[in-house]
């Protein structure tokens, strides 16, 4: 088990290194020169050249990468060209908002997703199943920024149930969480239902029934425990997407999370901030993949205890 984890951690570091290389390369060939934007309309060719020299942007790309990587290993992500604040500080602040938004919408997604999935599986082919699944497919199909705008107008402005923007306390996160969470609740519901149906065809379910156990015990202890493994995979990647993909929701509800920070940073070509941000997000994704692996081992003893089945 420990070897399994150590190998995964090494692989994860390799992935992060690869992503940092790709990002650095891409950011350098993306058109648009940050200094040009900084100086704005007052830029004259020689001031642009002078500022580029001071910021070291005239050195060859690989040299820039090396000293950036060197600093990164020492925890110094450099400072933003425009906001003049250390990148790490900006990331931490905006990550705080994204974490709150992500955790609310993820909690919503998991609870509703699992509940709908189990209900649909238990009442397979009855109207409950059909209604829930159409809702689930609907949830996946709606563009979340469009849903966000409508929620904002209906529940925010006209009904005044929830504040329409900002991020002061819990109530500010309700509408964004619904807008962001529906899609992931839908995907978790679908995978839970299919996995539960798949599991209910297995032999050990028949053994459980033959033992005369009560229905909900069969559903929860036998069916759900086994159905959990594929659900964890999907739930893991969804968490990754929520943490990185909520920029549209953040811009509509004015929550200055990491998504919005990144979009603005790319807009301004704030290279250190984008580079730092992508590393941060990649780090989160990789950590999530690790957690998913650990969860596999927790749920499935075959992985935890290794050994595998006998050779016949």
């Amino acid at each position, binding site marked *: 088990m420990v*070897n399994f984890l150590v190998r995964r951690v090494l692989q994860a570091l390799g992935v992060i290194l690869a992503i940092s290389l790709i990002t650095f390369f891409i950011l350098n060939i993306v058109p648009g020169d940050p200094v040009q934007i900084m100086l704005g309309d007052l830029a004259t060719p020689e001031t642009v050249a002078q500022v580029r020299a001071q910021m070291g942007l005239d050195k060859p790309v690989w040299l820039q990468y090396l000293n950036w990587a060197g600093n990164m290993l020492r925890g110094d992500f450099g400072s933003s060209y425009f906001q003049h604040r250390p990148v790490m500080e900006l990331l931490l602040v905006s990550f705080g908002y994204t974490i709150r938004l992500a955790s609310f919408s993820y909690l919503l997604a998991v609870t509703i997703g699992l509940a709908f999935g189990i209900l649909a599986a238990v009442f397979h082919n009855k109207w409950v199943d059909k209604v829930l699944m159409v809702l689930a497919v609907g949830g996946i199909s709606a563009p979340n920024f469009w849903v966000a705008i409508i929620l904002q107008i209906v529940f925010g402005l006209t009904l005044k149930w929830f504040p329409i923007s900002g991020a002061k306390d819990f109530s500010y996160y309700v509408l964004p969480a619904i807008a962001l969470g529906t899609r992931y609740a839908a995907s978790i519901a679908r995978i839970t239902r299919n996995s539960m149906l798949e599991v209910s065809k297995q032999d050990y379910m028949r053994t459980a029934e033959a033992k005369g156990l009560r229905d909900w015990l069969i559903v929860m202890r036998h069916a759900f425990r086994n159905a959990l493994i594929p659900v964890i995979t999907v739930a893991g990647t969804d968490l990754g997407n929520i943490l990185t993909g909520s920029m549209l929701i953040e811009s509509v509800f004015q929550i200055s999370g990491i998504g919005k920070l990144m979009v603005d940073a790319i807009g301004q070509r704030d290279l250190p901030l984008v580079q730092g941000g992508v590393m941060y997000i990649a780090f989160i994704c990789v950590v999530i993949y690790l957690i998913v692996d650990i969860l596999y081992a927790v749920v499935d003893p075959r992985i935890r205890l290794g050994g595998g089945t*006998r*050779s016949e």
Partner: protein
Amino acid sequence: MSQAPLLQVEHLKKYYSMKTGLFSRAAGVVKAVDDISFQLESGQTIGIVGESGCGKSTMGKTILRLIEPTAGKVLLDGEDFTALQGDALKRARRKMKLIFQDPYASLNPRMTVRDIIGENIDIDRTYSTRQEREDRIAEVMEQTGLNLDYMDRYPHEFSGGQRQRIGIARAIVLPPRLIICDEPVSALDVSIQAKIINLLKALQRDMGLSYIFISHDLSVVKHISDRVGVMYLGHMMELADKRSLYANPMNPYTQALISAVPKLPGETVREKIALSGDVPSPANPPSGCCFHTRCPHAMPICAQEQPELKQVGEDHFCACHLCKACAAAS
């Protein structure tokens, strides 16, 4: 028999290294096939019987080089098959074919029966016109009792028995010298099993085929084989002419095996030798004779030394310290 036997298997071994630890260092070896040797004359059938995990299927695939052997040689018509590469290997492969156990998994679900059967002649381009190909396929289908109208159907439209016939037709469309049958009838019902066995014997008569018949069912092996080998944990425990093996089994494992088969009324009933415990894991086989931990007649020497396969009778070899060498006995 002056010229060389069709197939000579000499000290065939297949070891799997078990990968554990951080950088998958080899931390142990599984001896799936451990020093197997036997000969097979043309037109003859040798049966290989043994329980799950004894390595009989692995041995079959290693002979065909589906799995590359770790050591040992396979001589086909005197030619060293294990050393062949490229076109020479491709030509040699025409002589040996394989038929499988699971009728549902051995046919490509998205190919028509015509293409499945015709695959071997397609690969070797042994026909000049398409019509020649169709005729050959039709001929082989009739030979294996398949209805020609079904030539363009797909595997999922056939019963288990018919699918096994398609597998056989595929194997003989390009007449081989040897067919390795890996548990061909284990998944079939008794009545269908009988038809397939009769078909295999008929083909052997007509085409002069020789078989290596692998199965865990002792009565089927006895019926179809000329000589029978008993395998346990990768080792050949006993190899003999079928009459002398079934009438007078020398190796304790063979005795226990034969006694454990539920008998029909009227068959000679031996007192049951119940073996205790389970087959040990091939990852760490017992020292000395691999059967000594479960053998009712285990002696101290059995735990130290691995018994050689010695001749103990006319065409009867046994690997057990109990059996004296043939010279001494007669």
